[in-house]
């Protein structure tokens, strides 16, 4: 890993040398870009992120649910789940309806608190609305608490038609 980093450093150095000839305007933009790259609030660390060149998102910070472990937040989230019509898309108890189930441990866009927050706030391209405009942060976090409480386990077993449930082994 350290070898990779060294190699990357060389590439960066070369790039910086190449940039020297650019105008100050471009240089200041590069500074801004660098600052932006350190803007930790913009990133959510996904467990299955591919790291090109083996380099992790160094400056990112996992978003934390301020209501983690707060049972009251789950209760309030369950009410929001109904009053914002989440229930008619995702089904009672997150059993799935128009939209995907939320209880089966199969998350399209990740099941960590930060990932679920991102899905609710920003929406998802297959039709999940972006709720960030309508709901405040604390409401979204309470929904996160509720939604994550629905999960019945990772990859809930499918039927095998012998009367027993089995561990899901993949699709």
């Amino acid at each position, binding site marked *: 890993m350290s070898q990779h980093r060294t190699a990357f450093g060389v590439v960066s150095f070369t790039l910086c040398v190449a940039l020297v000839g650019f105008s100050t305007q471009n240089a200041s933009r590069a500074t801004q870009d660098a600052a932006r790259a350190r803007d930790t609030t913009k990133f959510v660390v996904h467990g299955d992120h591919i790291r090109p060149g083996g380099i992790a998102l160094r400056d990112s910070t996992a978003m934390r649910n301020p209501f983690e472990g707060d049972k009251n937040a789950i209760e309030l989230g369950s009410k929001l789940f*109904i*009053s*914002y*019509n989440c229930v*008619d*898309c995702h*089904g*009672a*108890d997150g*059993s*799935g*309806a*128009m*939209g*995907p*189930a939320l*209880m*089966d441990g*199969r998350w*399209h866009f990740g099941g960590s608190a930060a990932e679920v927050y991102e899905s609710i706030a920003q929406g*998802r*391209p*297959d*039709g*999940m*609305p972006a709720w960030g405009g*309508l709901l405040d942060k604390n409401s979204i976090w309470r929904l996160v608490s509720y939604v994550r409480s629905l999960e*019945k386990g990772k990859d*809930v077993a*499918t*039927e095998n*038609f012998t009367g027993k449930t089995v561990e899901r082994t993949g*699709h």
Partner: protein
Amino acid sequence: MITALGFRLSAFAAIGSVLLAACGKQTSATADSAGSVAQVRGASIAFPRSGSADEWPMPGGDYSNSRYSELAQITPANATRLRAAWTFSTGVLRGHEGQPLVVDKTMYLVTPYPNVSYAIDLTTEGQPLKWKFRPENAQAAQGLACCDVVNRGASLANGALFYNLLDGHTVAVDAATGVQRWKTQMGDLQRGETITMAPIVAKGKVLVGSSGGEMGVRGWIAALDAASGKQLWRAYNLGPDKDVKAGTRFKPFYSQDRGTDIAMTSWPGESWKIGGGAAWGWFSYDPDLNLVFYGTSNPGPWNVAHRTGDNKWSASILARDVDTGELVWAFQVTPHDMWDYDAVNENILVNLPFDGAPRKVMVHFDRNGFAYTIDRATGQVLLAKPYVPMNWSTGVDLATGRPNVNPEKRTNAAPKVKNICPSLEGGKNQQPAAFSPATGWFYVPTNNLCMDWESREVSYIAGTPYIGASAPEMGGPGGYKGEFIAWDATTGRKAWGIKEPYPVWGGALATAGGVVFYGTLDGWFKAVDAINGKVLWKFKVGSGVVGNPVTYKGPDGKQYVAVYSGIGGDMGLLIAGDVAANLPYDVRERGSTLPELAKWTSWGGMLFVFSLDEK
């Protein structure tokens, strides 16, 4: 030995009949047992297709929606020789409702979202593609479709293939080249409007209607110029007369359907603006009366506390002038619907002997469980009889056309109302029936399901569901969940029925050869004797059938029967247990309705084509 076995089977059948009769009493909906209903002589398709019987140019085969073909090579005598001739994968694994078209030795297919279309050359061995068209189609539409991302097919006219995209557009694709001629935005995704229905083309106009009855839309139909894609008129199903196009020509048959702005005043406040009443089903066209007929969806939300009144024109059948969109008559099938009984099912235009005289009628098998025979010039109900087990109503009053509602089965009768039949899937849903002039009977794929109901509070948020109830379903009385029946629409009696373990969610095809075809949710495609309902042949296709068979004559002179295999749609996707195992749908609450279905089929997306083998 054979005799003894035969006797035992008869004995079983007799016991079964007694049991069924007992069940019939408790549901009040009974049909006559097989064998006692005579064929209907002198019945005819109102507007048989004008083109060649060798083709299948529009969704229902003709403007009457008869789904009948004059082709007669396949008969009860030779149907056992049916074999798979060729197959084609559509590349999409969602519910394949709808049907292929065949025109000019070419077959045309439209897939569920992303609504790819294919033109297949039938003249060359191996059935090569002439073209494949991939439309731009907003990804977000998938999350706004209530009941799977289905498409019910295309129409072919003026050298173009016309169909709707889930994201609310209508497209015209050149039939020869696969090049898009035009594309027009008709629906607004931000308000939950998608389009799933199959358009028809009449007098150079493409007639389309909206989906989204569960999303708080305000339903409409529109006519587009087939040549340019320009909208010629749009008529709303709810709202003031001006928007509904109810003017001097509007003459509803029943007095309760008359009144200025009745499609607005039969709603509280401005609730008509988000009241549903979409038009996602099958359209019919009467060239003599110059009328297009269609049904409208449920009112929204399901929770009736939000909408006192009749809620017109939700759950209604409407007749409009094709040229202007003017409303000519309307009949509300289920006033103030509280069971999600959309009236979008097909209206089959036929001429039937009625009380000794020929009568120009339409026959409509409604979600609410009644089969209606209606005068298509006036909207008068001539006959309405239950065609499936039901308990929500004791019958339709022919003086008013209104159903008499069993007060115990009102969904607001108690916080939890138990055992309402039929369920919200209806006695029949989108799966279209067929009509044969040879027998005069209708061939109807039906459901036998009941439901419990619990309403809850709901508020309208644009672009999200507007429902406010849950309604878990279970099998209906009699121990079967679907039945394929033959129906006499002059008397309202069942001639025969084939009981199925699952709701029959695929459509029917009737042919002059005396063979009727349909497919099942558990993946059987069946050929049946039109006269006695005997299953002549069946074939297990790759995935459950929710599409509609068609028949055509190939360039080699042989009769072919084609059908989609690909489980999905509301019944297939939402209730199919593990069928959608690769989607996160298999742990849903309603999976218990069809718990064993996943044992018999899995998701797919294939066209199957059958013909008689050479022997």
